């Protein structure tokens, strides 16, 4: 073995990309989204042969609904966790909100198209989050919000109709199904292509991205890191601790309120009676005098 084998090739040099909490969030999202898809799509297309087969395999429609709702609870908990970590980075760490869309993103889209089609040799240099990732992130935010709201309405139709017109229930069902289809197909086309098919992007599991992928997708971030920039800025400890104290108190209070809200939402109503009551009828009541 020579020393060259111990050196990482230049192309494969790893750059930090995701911290642990982001990867936990992704894992929660990945599991709950997959379960929601597997249990949800057959409900949307319940009477298709493949859907009926899936429902049957998973133990019948009522059980599929139970799994779907548990997965929804996990997704909502994951979303709340994400809100807290985001808030932590925003209020405590005071990080830049690099996920927000910018004008440059639009320019990057156009330049990417031009570059792909061969009109220009120059690929756009993109920052930590490129336009494709921002689209996907905000699609998840938007989608989760829609799914959670419409899901709540479908879960608690009686509570919902105390405030909303009745028609919101079937409308919520339509939106829940439409948004689900949009999300699943987007993941299948966009996410699968970009991080699995084009090349496998390991950063959500290892936290690191190899140089050649950094170069292609995050050239600006690569330049910044190579110029000695911190992947994530560290704060002076006294400042951090002071902010953390406030944050954790507020987070605990808000967290408890949110959890209570969650329990309230998920156990809000008994939508329908469990069993249709049996009507007892006297069946044999013969006529006293036979009719013609």
């Amino acid at each position, binding site marked *: 073995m020579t020393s060259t084998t111990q050196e990482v090739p230049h192309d494969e040099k790893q750059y930090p990309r995701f911290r642990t909490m982001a990867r936990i969030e992704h894992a929660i999202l990945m599991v709950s989204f997959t379960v929601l898809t597997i249990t949800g799509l057959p*409900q949307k297309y*319940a*009477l298709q042969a493949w859907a*009926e087969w899936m*429902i*049957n395999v998973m133990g*019948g*429609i*009522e059980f599929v609904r139970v799994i779907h709702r548990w997965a929804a609870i996990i997704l909502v908990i994951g979303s709340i966790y994400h809100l807290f970590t985001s808030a932590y980075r925003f209020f405590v760490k005071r990080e830049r909100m690099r996920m927000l869309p910018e004008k440059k993103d639009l320019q990057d*889209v156009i330049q*990417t*198209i031009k*570059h*792909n*089609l*061969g009109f220009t040799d120059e690929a756009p240099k993109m920052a930590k989050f490129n336009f*494709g990732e921002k689209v996907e992130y905000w*699609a998840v935010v938007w989608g989760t919000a829609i799914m959670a709201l419409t899901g709540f309405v479908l879960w608690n*139709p*009686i509570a919902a*109709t*105390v405030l*909303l*017109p*009745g*028609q*919101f229930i*079937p*409308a919520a*069902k*339509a*939106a829940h199904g*439409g*948004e689900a*289809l*949009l999300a699943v*197909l*987007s993941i299948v*086309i*966009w996410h699968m*292509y970009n991080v699995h098919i*084009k090349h496998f992007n390991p950063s959500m599991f290892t936290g690191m991205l190899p140089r050649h992928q950094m170069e292609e997708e995050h050239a600006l971030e690569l330049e910044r890191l190579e110029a000695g920039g911190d992947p994530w800025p560290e704060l002076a400890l006294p400042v951090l601790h002071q902010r953390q104290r406030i944050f954790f108190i507020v987070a605990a209070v808000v967290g408890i309120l949110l959890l209570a809200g969650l329990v309230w939402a998920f156990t809000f*109503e*008994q*939508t*329908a*009676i469990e*069993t*249709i009551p*049996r009507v007892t*009828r*006297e*069946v*044999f*009541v*013969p*006529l006293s005098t*036979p*009719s*013609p």
Partner: protein
Amino acid sequence: MEQLINKRRMVWGGVCAVLACLVAIYVLPTLAAPEPDITAVIQSHPPITDANQTAVLAVNQLAHAQIADDTACRLCHSDTEENVVFPSGETVSAQIDLAVLANSAHGDAASDPVACSSCHQPINNYQQPHVPVSADTLREYELTQSANCQTCHVQPHITSHPGPESENPVACTDCHGSHDVLTVEEWQSGAGTEACTDCHVEQDVPIVEASQLTEIIQAGLFTQQVDNSYCLACHSQEGLTYTFPNGDTLNLTIDANALHDSVHGDGNSWQPLACTDCHEDVRFPHEPVTVESEREYNLQQYPLCGRCHETNYDHTLDDVHGAAIAEGELEAAVCTDCHGAHDTPIPNEPRERISYTCEQCHSTIFDEYATSVHGEALLSESNPDVPTCINCHGVHNISDPTTALFRIRSPQLCAECHADVELMEKYEISTDVFDTYVADFHGTTVTLFEHQDPNVETNKAVCYDCHGVHAIKAPDDPEAGIKANLLETCQQCHPDATANFPDSWTSHFKPSLQNNPLVYLVNLFYQIVIPATLGFFGFMVATDIYRRVRLRLRG
């Protein structure tokens, strides 16, 4: 009975035997006989019942008690050339063929032989030498002697022959003979027919009710397959009843016209049925009835229908009525309860007859049905399209409507008509109702259960949970229609539902700008957004692939 007589004979001798005989003759047959009201023209031949056997026996014992044997009679009458001479100049041979007598119903070969003096009483007339006959003519003698038959044969005889009240009565001996009386078995096997033909064919005696009797006489009274008119000779008589041990009274009178007009009668596509096609083992005299009540009798008889209607009969054994009977609920319907026994009409003509038939037992449910949109149309205008009871419940394979299976399958039942475009067009009823139901939460769930777990209860509504079961009204019925009572209807299953809740049901409308516009717009939104988004992603992916392929080709 026999023991009793023997005991008393030890003490009271013949006097008590006479009493026993009278009891046996007058009391026992009335207990056993199911048809006390028959007015027969001539009384003679007794039905062979246990009671009557006893009666004959009793007479025999009486005769033997008084007369040691017939040896004295036989000594002369077995071999004589003497004639009995009547004042009219008529003569009759005094010779008796002892072999024939011995083989007759009254002879030594019979189980209960009758002594000469049992019939030829009083004995003094036969003391040797015999006094001259008191009768002026042979015919007068025959009639007088025939009256002796009634000493034993008190049961009414089914015949329309003129009796003693007539100017020209027919005597027992005219048909049955005197010393050569045929046994019941011989009559049943067809012997003795010549007795009929002697008069009605060879001597050309006119038959009063020729239409009823000619065939009988020609075919023989006791042939294997008797003619309907033979049975109807009795069973068309008014007031014929049978009282069961439990007090039930069964009307035995059969309306011959109704029988002939029934599906089994002259109109039968196969051939008119004879009484014996169903009652195949019934002979006259009838076997005693063994059951206690009219219901037991019906249950005993109805399997006869299965001999021809095997499929339907077998179905009923498995259906809800058959199961109820098997569980001991004997009032559950059998064939004859719905179809009748002898006056079976065409069961679905007119159509409302079907539901009226069910009403016989299910009157309260019928009353509800009668007020429904279906029932009203059926009963008032004999509507050919609305369901009668059997369209939903089935006919001979009626299933238990209280099972989960029945409930889960019920939407299919409604859909048979309500998804039929041609049928619904006549009444301007939307056929979207089934599809929209299945597309909705309730219908989807119920359909999945139907496909996967049809025997499991589900709390999701089926058609009749909202629309009612038997008392289904038109949706816009101002009082009882579902539109007027939607919230109450929802609250049956959703007790906490409030005023807005019913609108969450799309009322069987496919979403459009007119009905459920919000749903329509949401669907429209996704019909645009999904292809647009995916189109953008797809375009970006396609250009990326294009670049990579181009780079690779370039090397």
